[in-house]
C-alpha cells in the first residue's frame, strides 16, 4: 500500500454565509489547498457532503470541479451523514494508497443556512431511521438527548459536569479566526440556556453552520517534490453501527468510535497514549463524552470526571479540540471531518492560527448519525 500525505489545506470561516453559495465556499477552500500544493493540478476531486439535496443540488463533484477549473478530472461525492467529510477522506486516501492516483483533492462543503431551521433540522434527522424514528418527529438533538439522559442517569453525572465541555470549547474557539461562535461562555450560561430537547440545552449543541474545508492528498514522490512539511496519514479507520438507537449493544457506548480508533491505531502502529492532540466530534456535549471514552482517552462513564479535574485543556496531553470543536468552531456537517484533519495538519506543521499545541502525532474523529458512521484518522509529522 502506498503512503499518503497531506500537502495542502484550506478552509473558509465557519458561519452563516448568506452572501456565499455552496460553490463559492467550496472554491475558496479548494483554491487555498491547491495553492499550498504549489498549484499542482489534482487528478481527482472527492466531495464530502450530507445535505446538498436540501438546496436541490446534487452531482457536487462535477459542479465544484467545473467551477474551480478542473473540468475533465475524475470525482464523486461521498455521504455518511455528519461523518461525510471523514468518509470522503477515507475514499481519497484509498485512491492514492491503491496506486490508482497520486493527487487527490478532498473537499468537504455544507450550506445549511439556506432554508428555515425546521427544514434543516428535518434534514439533519435524515441520519436517523426514517421508518422507525423520524416518523415520530424526533430531531437529531432529540436522539442525542435520549442518550444524554441515559448516560447521566447510569453514571450519576451532574448537569454542571456536563456543562464543562461547552465552556472549554468556547474558551478554545475564541482564539480560532475560522470559528463560527467566537465568544467565551460561563458554566452558569450553559446550564441556564434554553432547553432544545431536554436535557440538551442550547449551549450543549453545535450551531447550524455553513463552510468548506479542503485537503490536498498526494503520494510520497509528489509530496517530496512539492512541500518541505508533508504530514503523513499514519492510520485511518472507519466503522459503522446501527442507524437506529434501539438495537444498539449499549446506549452509552459508541461501538464505531472504539472500532475505528482500533483500526487507525493498528495501521499507524502507535498506542492511544502517543496522541498529543485530537479534534473530536462534539456535536452535543454528550457526543463529546462518548467520543472521548470510545477513543480511549477516558474509561467508560469517566470523561466528565476527567474534565472536572482539568484534563484535555491546552497544555494537557492530549489537548482536545484546540479549534473549539463543533461547539465553537461550528459544524458545517459534511465539511466537519475535513476541517478536523486540516486543523490537525496545521497543528503538526505549527501554523494553526488559534491555540497551538506542540505535537508530533494527532488524531481526528468524525461522527455521522448518533455514532453510526465514524472515521478516525491519525496524522504524524
Amino acid at each position, binding site marked *: 500500500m502506498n503512503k499518503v500525505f497531506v500537502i495542502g489545506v484550506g478552509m473558509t470561516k465557519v458561519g452563516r454565509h448568506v452572501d456565499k453559495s455552496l460553490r463559492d465556499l467550496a472554491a475558496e477552500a479548494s483554491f487555498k489547498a491547491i495553492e499550498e500544493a504549489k498549484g499542482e493540478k489534482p487528478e481527482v476531486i472527492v466531495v464530502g457532503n450530507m445535505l446538498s439535496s436540501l438546496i436541490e443540488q446534487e452531482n457536487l463533484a462535477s459542479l465544484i470541479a467545473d467551477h474551480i477549473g478542473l473540468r475533465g478530472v475524475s470525482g464523486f461525492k461521498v455521504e455518511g451523514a455528519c461523518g461525510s467529510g471523514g468518509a470522503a477522506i477515507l475514499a481519497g486516501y484509498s485512491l492514492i494508497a491503491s496506486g490508482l492516483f497520486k493527487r487527490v483533492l478532498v473537499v468537504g462543503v455544507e450550506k445549511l443556512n439556506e432554508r*428555515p431551521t425546521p427544514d434543516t*433540522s428535518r434534514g439533519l434527522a435524515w441520519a436517523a431511521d426514517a421508518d422507525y424514528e423520524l416518523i415520530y418527529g424526533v430531531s437529531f438533538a432529540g436522539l442525542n438527548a435520549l442518550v444524554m439522559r441515559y448516560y447521566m442517569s447510569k453514571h450519576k453525572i451532574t448537569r454542571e459536569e456536563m456543562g464543562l465541555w461547552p465552556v472549554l470549547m468556547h474558551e478554545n474557539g475564541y482564539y480560532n479566526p475560522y470559528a463560527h461562535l467566537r465568544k467565551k461562555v460561563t458554566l452558569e450560561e450553559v446550564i441556564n440556556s434554553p432547553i432544545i430537547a431536554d436535557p440538551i440545552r442550547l449551549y450543549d449543541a453545535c450551531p447550524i453552520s455553513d463552510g468548506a474545508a479542503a485537503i490536498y492528498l498526494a503520494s510520497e514522490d509528489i509530496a517530496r517534490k512539492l512541500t518541505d512539511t508533508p504530514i503523513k496519514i499514519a492510520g485511518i479507520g472507519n466503522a459503522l453501527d446501527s442507524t437506529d438507537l*434501539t438495537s444498539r449493544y449499549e446506549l452509552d457506548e459508541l461501538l464505531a468510535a472504539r472500532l475505528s480508533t482500533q483500526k487507525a491505531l493498528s495501521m499507524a502502529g502507535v498506542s492511544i497514549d502517543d496522541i498529543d492532540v485530537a479534534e473530536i466530534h462534539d456535536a452535543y456535549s454528550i457526543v463529546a463524552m462518548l467520543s472521548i471514552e470510545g477513543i480511549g482517552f477516558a474509561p467508560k462513564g469517566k470523561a466528565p470526571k476527567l474534565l472536572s479535574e482539568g484534563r484535555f485543556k491546552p497544555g494537557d496531553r492530549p489537548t482536545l479540540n484546540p479549534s473549539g470543536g463543533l461547539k465553537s468552531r461550528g459544524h458545517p456537517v459534511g465539511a466537519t471531518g475535513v476541517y478536523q484533519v486540516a486543523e490537525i495538519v496545521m497543528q503538526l506543521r505549527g501554523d494553526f492560527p488559534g491555540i497551538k499545541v506542540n505535537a508530533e502525532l494527532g488524531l481526528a474523529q468524525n461522527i455521522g448519525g448518533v455514532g453510526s458512521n465514524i472515521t478516525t484518522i491519525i496524522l504524524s509529522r
Partner: protein
Amino acid sequence: MTTVQRIWRFKRRLIKLTASKCLKCGYIAYPPKHACPRCGSRDLVSLDLPSRGRIETYTILNVPIKGFENSLPLIIALIRLGDALVMSEVINVKPEEVREGMEVEATIAPSARTLDGAIPYVVKFKPVEGSRKP
C-alpha cells in the same frame, strides 16, 4: 416527509411492534433486520413484543422539525418491552409527569400528515393507569 405507500408498506410493523430474533445467537433487534447485526445469520424469526413496558430514557422536544410544528412539546422515549427497546411518542401525559421507569402501554394514535396529505395511525404509548405517581 413520508408518503402513503411507504406507510402502507410497513403498516403492520407500525402497529404490531414486531422485532427480529436470531435463531443462531438469540439476538433480538428492533427495528427488525434482514440479518442478525451481531452474528450475521439470516436465520431469523419475527417476534411480537409485549405491549406494556417501562420508559428507559426520554426527551421533551421544544424545537420542532418540519411537519411537527404543531406537536410541541413532543415527548419521545425509548421504552423497554421485554428484551427489546423501541422508540415512540408518549401521549396522555404532561411533560413534567414523565420519568424514567414509568410504566407505559401501547395504543394506536394519529401521526403527522404525510407528504400526500394522509394522516397515518401508528403505535404510541400512554401511561398505565396508576403509574403517574412515583
